[in-house]
């Protein structure tokens, strides 16, 4: 069979490549030089993406829980049971919700939104990772008036300066890391901000240490330094008028270190300069302010929306940006239309045939706690939610859990109805890359057994719950997305042109950035140590990694060697405690305590303890569902 051009399902870089098919199975990956994102370069995950669909444990027939056991049933029975149980739960006055996913296409996420806010008349539709990304978009919106950064990954290669708020992009967003490596080779000065050393920090011209969860202390100082250093964009400042003075005043308390001053100076002076924000572990308010700082920095120095000066917020997983954009976000209708927007309401009513519910939804963690019925589209909340164990408990308490997935995941144990759907290799649709490009996913093989494309299953559910809804293919769903969105954003869905990046019109929306005072930056309270998740989330639990014999090896070995988890400490900390590799240490926080073996991590700041996300549940008593906590560490 001919190779099929498609988009990588893993990270939001959104690399294109061909899937090679042999005897009805995905057999290999062929890189595409013509692809505008990857240009022939893929990371290990992309190269291994053909494996999980062919090797993994696939869901091949609808299942229903009957007296505690899962039994195969017909599609008719399963869909009916799913619809009936959701409606019954709602009728009984209980909360129901829908979880979209970064692993699902735009079409699937959009239909999930339509299912919730339309057919099921519930405002609760969100993805498990929305809370890691939406606040950053909101922060940009505060300054730029839109929920998006600008520019592309390829732009990075030509930048003279790159400011990277680092998690570990070499692992999470390899294509971004690649562009940074290339830029650096061409003479770019890389500035990293982060608490944990990474491959990128080792390449940095300047690396600014931050306190985990408090990266904002640095970004706030950067704005202050840039303003103090001059070289500002006159037009923006003139337009801002008095608010600019308010901004200046709000920065009076900022503590600007020499490194921060240098970084700000480099950034302000460069013709082409970039800001990149990797997924961070911090609370929502802090994330929002951090993005606001960075947008202010870009605007004040004239880099905002300048061609060649990208501002990139990296979503943690594949289609997280798309999920948020099509409405899997508590505060928005599709296309980031505010819930209060009457125009958007009537537009959706026109498309859906029912008025959308326009109340604020719950975030994923709240929804799981409150809801008694949930539809989960291609996600395992126990693997991606900050508090995995709590998510497990919450799902166990529910009356109905309708799970759509292509792969068997631990969530299967908790489902009441399972609807088998196509994996990316068997699915048609689109995903949105980190730069806003809408990219095509194309089916290379047929779904196994009785599995159907997710969009078709969601459409069938819609049909059962409301007016008949029929789509002749994912493309028709996509065109509906275009109509459901505000016109400027919807344009990107109308005609998919993968070479085209977000058009300028959408970028500046015809308005100037609104500079204004920044929220004060609370001083950092000294803590003996701070425990923080690794910020990479857990690739190992993603079925596309877990079921790929080549990709699963590192995470499988980690789980095998440390079944009860481990924590990473600096050499200094280990020496101070007198512990060696593998020896147990006790972490104590306000919430509780836990013991785990210590593993040394080079270049870690002395006061930082890294808790691998995969093992967060083992450390739950200490972390309590938070990404960052002050802890005391002692030898156990």
């Amino acid at each position: 069979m001919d190779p099929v051009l498609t988009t990588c399902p893993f990270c939001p870089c959104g690399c294109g490549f061909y899937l090679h098919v042999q005897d009805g199975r995905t057999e290999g990956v062929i890189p595409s030089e013509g692809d505008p994102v990857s240009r022939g370069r893929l990371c290990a995950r992309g190269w291994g993406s053909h494996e999980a669909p062919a090797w993994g444990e696939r869901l091949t027939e609808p299942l229903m829980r009957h007296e505690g056991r899962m039994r195969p049933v017909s599609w008719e029975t399963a869909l009916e049971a799913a619809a009936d149980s959701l409606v019954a739960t709602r009728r009984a006055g209980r909360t129901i919700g829908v979880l979209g996913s970064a692993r699902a296409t735009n079409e699937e996420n959009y239909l999930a939104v339509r299912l919730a806010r339309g057919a099921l008349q519930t405002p609760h539709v969100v993805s498990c990772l929305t809370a890691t990304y939406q606040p950053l978009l909101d922060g940009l919106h505060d300054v730029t008036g839109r929920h998006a950064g600008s520019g592309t990954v390829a732009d990075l290669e030509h930048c003279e300066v790159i400011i990277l708020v680092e998690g570990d992009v070499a692992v999470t967003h390899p294509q971004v890391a690649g562009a940074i490596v290339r830029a650096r080779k061409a003479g770019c000065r890389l500035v990293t901000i982060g608490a944990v050393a990474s491959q990128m920090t080792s390449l940095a011209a300047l690396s600014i240490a931050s306190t985990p969860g408090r990266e904002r202390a640095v970004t706030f100082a950067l704005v202050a330094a840039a303003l103090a250093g001059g070289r500002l964009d006159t037009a923006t400042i003139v337009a801002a008028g008095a608010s600019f003075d308010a901004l200046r005043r709000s920065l009076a308390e900022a503590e600007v270190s020499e490194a921060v001053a240098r970084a700000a100076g480099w950034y302000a002076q460069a013709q082409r300069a970039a800001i990149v924000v990797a997924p961070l572990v911090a609370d929502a308010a802090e994330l929002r302010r951090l993005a606001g700082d960075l947008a202010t920095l870009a605007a004040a120095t004239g880099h905002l929306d300048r061609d060649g000066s990208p501002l990139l917020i990296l979503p943690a997983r594949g289609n997280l940006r798309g999920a948020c954009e099509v409405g899997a976000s508590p505060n928005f209708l599709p296309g980031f239309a505010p819930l209060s927007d009457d125009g958007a309401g009537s537009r959706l009513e026109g498309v859906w045939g029912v008025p959308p519910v326009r109340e604020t939804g719950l975030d994923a963690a709240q929804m799981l706690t409150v809801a008694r019925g949930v539809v989960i589209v291609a996600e395992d909340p126990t693997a991606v939610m900050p508090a995995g164990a709590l998510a497990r408990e919450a799902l166990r308490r529910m009356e109905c859990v309708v799970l759509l997935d292509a792969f068997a995941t631990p969530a299967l144990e908790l489902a009441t109805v399972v609807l088998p759907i196509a994996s990316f290799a068997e699915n048609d649709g689109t995903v949105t890359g980190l730069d806003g490009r809408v990219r095509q996913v194309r089916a290379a093989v047929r779904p196994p057994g009785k599995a159907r494309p997710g969009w078709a299953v969601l459409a069938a559910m819609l049909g059962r719950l409301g007016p008949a809804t029929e789509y002749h293919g994912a493309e028709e769903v996509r065109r509906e997305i275009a109509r459901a969105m505000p016109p400027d954003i919807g344009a990107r869905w109308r005609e998919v042109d993968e070479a085209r990046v977000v058009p300028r019109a959408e970028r500046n929306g015809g308005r100037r950035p609104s500079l204004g005072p920044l929220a004060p930056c609370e001083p950092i309270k000294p803590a003996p140590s701070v425990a923080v998740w690794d910020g990479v989330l857990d690739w190992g639990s993603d079925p596309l990694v877990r079921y790929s014999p080549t990709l699963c090896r590192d995470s499988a070995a980690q789980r095998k060697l440390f079944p009860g988890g481990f924590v990473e400490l600096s050499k200094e900390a280990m020496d101070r405690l007198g512990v060696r590799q593998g020896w147990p240490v006790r972490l104590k926080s306000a919430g509780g305590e836990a013991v785990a073996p210590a593993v040394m991590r080079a270049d870690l700041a002395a006061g930082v303890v890294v808790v691998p996300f995969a093992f967060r549940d083992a450390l739950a008593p200490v972390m309590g569902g938070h990404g960052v906590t002050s802890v005391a560490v002692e030898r156990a």
Partner: protein
Amino acid sequence: MQVSSARTIGKERTGEWIGRLIENAEVVAPTAAQAGDVIFRKISSPVEVQWGSDNPLFPPKQVVLPQTDPLVTISRGADGLVVEPVYDERPRVLFGVHSCDVKGIDFLTRMHAYDLADTAYLRRAAALTSVSVACITPCPLGFCICCDAGPFLAESFDVQLTDLGDRFLAEVGSEKGGRLVEPSADLFRTAEAGEVARRHELEEAAKRAFGPETCHFASAMRRVSVGRVSAELWDEIAGTCLECGACNFVCPTCYCFSVKDQGRDGHWVRCRTWDSCQFRAFTREASGHNPREAHRERVKRRFFHKVSAQYFRRDGAVGCVGCGRCVKVCLGTTDMPAVVAAIRKGAWHG
């Protein structure tokens, strides 16, 4: 090459020839694909062949060594498990490959025949005949001339075509190659001395067209073979490698693999799957011990295998055919020419 063995075929007749090849074999050739790429794949008509394209980014290696290569099927029979070897002996013609890729497959075949013969591979390779097109202009990133793998081939080819404008000169380099040409003798005519002379002129011109900035294996080999490259330099190089494995996957001479069982419930296919020595898990043992835990050890390994004198003696060639693909696919900047230069100069460009 003897004058008498060379023939020519008018370009207007190549379609006819390819058509006949398609009748008797699976013909794999460079073809156009969706995103403007050129990809080797099975063709069903001569018009699909993309003549004169740059060398496709993805080598034709998967024709002899598929990414997922079934080796053994296992099933439950009446008297217990039944294990059967899988052989793929479909006659194939690899049409329109460049010289470096012919050398690549030649290299792979030698590796699989060396010491213990890998019959699964060798039978597939034996059923493959190549029709290569000599390169009259070097490709932008190629350095085959440093690896004795092009631009023209003097050996290892089955049929080698040289573009003489309105016709191709066809040289037959093996019996297998003869079997592609003989039955279509009516489409060819014996080459004239002038045509053969022209081919040599083109070869000389092609060789001259390589710039001075090629890849100096010899000096790198001297250092790599005796471990005289500092750990610091390997560290620096490793710092810009993102462990994607692409360098191995697109390399015409790389063949590292793992063996795994696909399927379930009594129907399994044991497959060989491409693996990469750049992956951390490549040498990790069950205990967690990993002799190449440090990234620099893995990078070092790749270049030891490719350019050390120890392997050169064993394999009779460096593990590189100069196709330049790793330059394009490297997610970092750690491609063969860059690293060879770094070893030679003792400094990384980073």
